[in-house]
Each structure stands twice: as C-alpha cells, then as structure tokens.
C-alpha cells in the first residue's frame, strides 16, 4: 500500500489482498450494525454509547432519537469503503477521505472488540487479527495526517 496526496485528493494504491480485506471488513461492519448478535454488545456499547451516565431515562431517550440516524450513517460510510476499495489506485476527494477515516474508526472498533481491547492497557497481541488491527490503524493514521495537511 502507498498513500499520497495530490492537491485536494488522497490517492491510495492497494494490493489486491489489502483491498479485499478492507472490503470484507467494511461489509462485516455494516452487517453487524444492521443485524447485531448477542456477542456484539461490547461493540455496540462503543458505537452507540450512552449520552448520559447518571440518567438512564435521558440516555434511553437520546438513543431513541439518535440511534436510527447514527446506524444509517455508520452503515453508509462502511458501504462506501466497501464499494470503493479495490486493487490499484483509489482516489478519494476530501469528503470521501473524511468518510473513510470515520468508517475506519468503526471497523477498528469491531476488530478491537474481537481482540478484547477494552482499555488502553490491553494489547492486541499477536496473530492475523492483531496484524489486521495494526494495519487498519496505520491506514487511518496516515489518512488523517494527509487530511490535516501534514
């Protein structure tokens, strides 16, 4: 993978397996948000946190008003990543790049939850999933650096 910035556009050159991986993960994320299972409770708590810590009624009310829209935007962002990640050069305008970094946070939360990362002290450990987690973090980090004009 190579990433660079040309004018207002970010260009990412993906290997086939990188693009395939990102597409699968983004689709998995959209599926989990749309149709979560019992095991996904820790992830959902991160994706849709309570907005009030000392007022469960207000927290429930906030969820009622915001959950659908938040779900929809997270799914849409992930689907945009899944729809545009491909082998070779992917060109993202500023708006698309911002959608990508937003989607990457959700995808990293999904992978991080599977790795049992709950606090800053939890390490991803070793193995394929930990490697994927590290790779996603690097991709997001560099995308943000480019957006910030570094």
């Amino acid at each position, binding site marked *: 993978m190579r990433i660079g910035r040309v004018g207002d556009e970010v260009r990412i050159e993906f290997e086939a397996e990188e693009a395939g991986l990102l597409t699968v993960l983004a689709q998995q994320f959209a599926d989990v948000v749309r149709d979560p299972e019992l095991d996904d409770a820790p992830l959902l708590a991160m994706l849709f946190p309570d*907005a009030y810590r000392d007022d469960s009624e207000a927290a429930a009310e906030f969820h009622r008003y915001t959950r659908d829209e938040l779900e929809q935007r997270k799914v849409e962002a992930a689907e945009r990543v899944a729809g545009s990640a491909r082998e070779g050069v992917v060109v993202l305008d500023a708006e698309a790049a911002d959608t990508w970094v937003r989607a990457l*946070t959700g995808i990293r939360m999904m992978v991080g939850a599977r790795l049992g990362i709950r606090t800053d002290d939890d390490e991803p450990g070793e193995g394929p999933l930990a490697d994927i987690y590290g790779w996603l973090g690097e991709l997001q980090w560099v995308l943000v650096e480019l957006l910030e004009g570094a």
Partner: protein
Amino acid sequence: MAVVAQLVERWLVVPDVAGSSPVDRPKNHEIPGPGSSTTASPVLDRETVASLDVPWVLIVWNDPINLMNYVVHVFRTYFGYSREEAERLMLLVHHEGRAVVASGPREEMERHAQAMHDYGLTATIAKDAP
C-alpha cells in the same frame, strides 16, 4: 487512545506536486458544525444570550481505539478549534480520561454528542458542576 508509531511513514508518499500545500487543505463540510447554528444568532442579542441558563457540558471520554491524531482531527473539523486547542483537549482526554469540550444549552450539547458518536468518540452530556 491508541498511538501508532511513526513507522507508518515508511509507506507514506506525499507527491511533490504544485497545489498540494497545506493552504489548499480541504475542509470537511459533511457534518454541520457549531458554525451552522449561527443562522439563529442574529435574533439573540448579547444580553439575551447572557441571561440564558447554560449549565450543560459535553464531555469526551478516553477510549482504547481512537487514534490521537483522529481525535485532534475531529475537534478541529467539527468544533473549529485551533490545532493548539484541539491538541490540548485531546491530551486532556488521553491523560485525564475525559475533557469538557463544549458547554451551552442542553439541546446544543445533545447535537454535539450525536456528532461525536457519529465520529466514533465516546461523548456524554452532564449538568455543569456549580
């Protein structure tokens, strides 16, 4: 917050192309920021604003997933904070576990909270401590 080592620079390629200077850095217009609410401000004079009880704050909490530069990016693009202020708030979140990043009427704080959740940040609303 998670920290990614600078080793990522090994595949960071920034083409040396005219027009790629930071001045041309694109702005994010996807999510309405606080600035979008200024359309309502002309009807509120300074005294009216001062008389409003604004005892609500928006708190952003540390989490183990979000990257430090992403949190700065969100604070800058959404709230319009300077880089210095955005970094100061990010470090507060990182070291203290949380930081108050905005204050104002409850409805406004709820809008901000939803936006933070959209970005994947853990944000809560609370009454400002007296």
